[in-house]
């Protein structure tokens, strides 16, 4: 504890001579002081780089099959026959059809990151708009929102995803982006509700404050009050929710992939998304004795990414609102 005290004093002294900082600068500084969160951000940026530059980084293309090289173990494994000995060309071995596992894992990062980040923007923007409008104006919009919330909260999310993904798989929507678009859509339909409810609560408590009355007295319009006063003041919890939305989405995709309901295996080599970690787990399950890396590699990646987001989410929450520390 002693070290913390001295650090606190040094920070206090520094604050006396520094120009005033805003919430975000303060939060960023607090976040950087959180070692776990910083480490998580570093690991996560590696995954983001892998996702963006998958075609350049991966040694092969995920659809490239190597004849007679099915289910080879990892490169360092020494077996009695050529079939059970690793090949230096394939660091993590090959899968049941002769694809390079390392390549597939790298391309899987791309799917996971896309599933994490893209629906998040949809969820946050939709949820924020609806939440602000229903919190600010109340009335029938508010009633409708609360009824929808009740239903969504009662419908187990995974159940809904499984039904949607399996039922709409053969429709045009289910074919776009190898089925990812449908997943984005399903994730957004369920998750915007939580955001809307949070923003609504935030707006309800904010709009009773004096500064909102003051804004109204000087003649600010409803739109202006919402955009310039209510929105910036509810941004902090929205950011925290966003940080927890991403891992949920990634986990959902991995789970669905494992049940065979996630992304479809690509047949077009130019497709943006080729494979996913969940799908690799599904394939790896049948070959776990001979080629455990087909399981170990994607499982480790999923676990790492989930951990990173847990640390970042916790760190963001503590940094943005020290009062919320420890709640979850």
């Amino acid at each position, binding site marked *: *504890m002693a070290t913390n005290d001295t650090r606190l004093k040094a920070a206090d002294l520094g604050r006396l001579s520094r120009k005033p900082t805003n919430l975000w600068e303060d939060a960023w500084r607090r976040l950087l002081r959180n070692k776990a969160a910083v480490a998580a951000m570093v690991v996560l940026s590696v995954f983001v780089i892998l996702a963006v530059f998958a075609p350049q980084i991966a040694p092969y293309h995920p659809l490239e099959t190597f004849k007679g090289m099915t289910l080879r173990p990892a490169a360092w494994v020494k077996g009695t026959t050529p079939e059970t000995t690793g090949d230096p060309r394939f660091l993590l071995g090959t899968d049941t059809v002769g694809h390079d596992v390392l390549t597939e894992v790298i391309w899987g990062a791309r799917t996971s990151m896309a599933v994490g980040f893209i629906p998040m923007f949809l969820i946050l923007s939709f949820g924020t708009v609806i939440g602000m409008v229903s919190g600010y104006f109340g009335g029938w919009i508010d009633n409708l929102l609360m009824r929808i919330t*009740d*239903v969504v909260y*009662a*419908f*187990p*999310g*995974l*159940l*809904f995803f*499984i*039904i*949607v993904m*399996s*039922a*709409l*798989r*053969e*429709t045009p929507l289910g074919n776009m982006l190898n089925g990812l678009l449908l997943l984005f859509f399903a994730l957004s339909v369920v998750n915007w509700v939580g955001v809307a409810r949070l923003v609504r609560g935030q707006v309800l408590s904010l709009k009773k404050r004096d500064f909102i009355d003051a804004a109204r007295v000087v003649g600010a319009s409803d739109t202006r009050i919402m955009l310039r006063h209510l929105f910036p003041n509810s941004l902090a919890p929205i950011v925290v929710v966003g940080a927890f939305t991403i*891992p949920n989405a990634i*986990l959902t995709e*991995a*789970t669905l992939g*494992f*049940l*065979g*309901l996630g992304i479809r295996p690509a047949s077009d080599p130019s497709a943006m998304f080729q494979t996913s970690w969940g799908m690799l*787990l599904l394939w*790896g*399950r049948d070959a*776990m*004795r001979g080629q*455990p890396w087909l*399981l*170990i590699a994607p*499982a480790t990646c*999923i*676990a790492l990414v*989930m*951990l990173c*987001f*847990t*640390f970042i989410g916790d760190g963001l929450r503590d940094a943005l609102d020290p009062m919320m520390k*420890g*709640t*979850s």
Partner: protein
Amino acid sequence: MSKFLIRRTLAIIPTLFVVALVTFSIMHATPGGPWDADASKRGTDPRFQETLNRRYGLDKPLFWNSGAFAQARAEGESVLAAAPKLLDAQFENYLFNLLRGDWGPSYRFRGRDVQDVMFAPEEGRPIWTSRFGTTALLGILALIMATVAGLTLGIIAALRQNSWADYLCLFFATVFYGIPNFVLGVFFILIFAVALDMIPVITPAIWYENSNAPNLGAAFLPSLTLAVGTAAYLARLTRSSMLEVMRQDYTRTARAKGLSEWVVVMRHMLKNALIPVVTVLGPALANLVTGSFIIETLFGINGIGRLYVESISRRDYSMIMGTTLFYALLVALANLSVDIVYGMVDPRIRVGE
């Protein structure tokens, strides 16, 4: 309190109705039907399919049988007399049958009803060896493990705050809270089945063939997998809640009175610290329940979760409806039970009073 309970219980009905409606609509919005799987193999001829559809009522409209209504009106019946004809559609028929306790025939398990597949044991075996019994056993074991481990770890961590025990508990709680349960299951299988060869890769039956006792050895790993995430979550929550309670005046008073440490911890601290923990038991329980799809599929266990996943791919409509409603009911009941327990542990916040 009872008024609140009745209102809360009745609120489950519209929820389940909406769940049924959404599931039904999505399922039927899709191309392909329950006979497709056979069509490719057996080349079911269209006349046979038609007969099947008629027998199972699949030839009727989904929501409004306006055809039958118009016909009845044309035959000179009054609007009121013809109205029931309008409701003679697949969705309404399903709901009416459901209310009578008939969940409809399973399209996949020929000759068996949905409730029969879900809840009835094999010939001559006790009722708890059914698919439902299997899922329930895993869930109960997991719930016990999660609560015991979570509370114990949380309490120890809080009592020894900032010691190595605390850091160890926190570390494990954070790591295992973050790792999804099916990834954990994969690691467990790799470690215990593949590397150490301690258990078979495919989990043996949860219920012994010749006796009616559960094979706890087989059930252990799946339930542990289910439990770990919840245990970690509960440990984190219990710890922070205990730390809060430790600083309260009544704890100091209890110590000052010279009560033994055990009494202070159990009677004064824990009782209060558990209130926030109880509030998350509902979602945690729901999490355990829905976790069973993955765990049962992963370990190859014949429970309701696996049945659900399989009936989705086989387009066994009535089975999907049955299992979905069953899961939704479980989640609703889990949340309801938490509201009840909440009122019991904390008389200050009886909801709705």
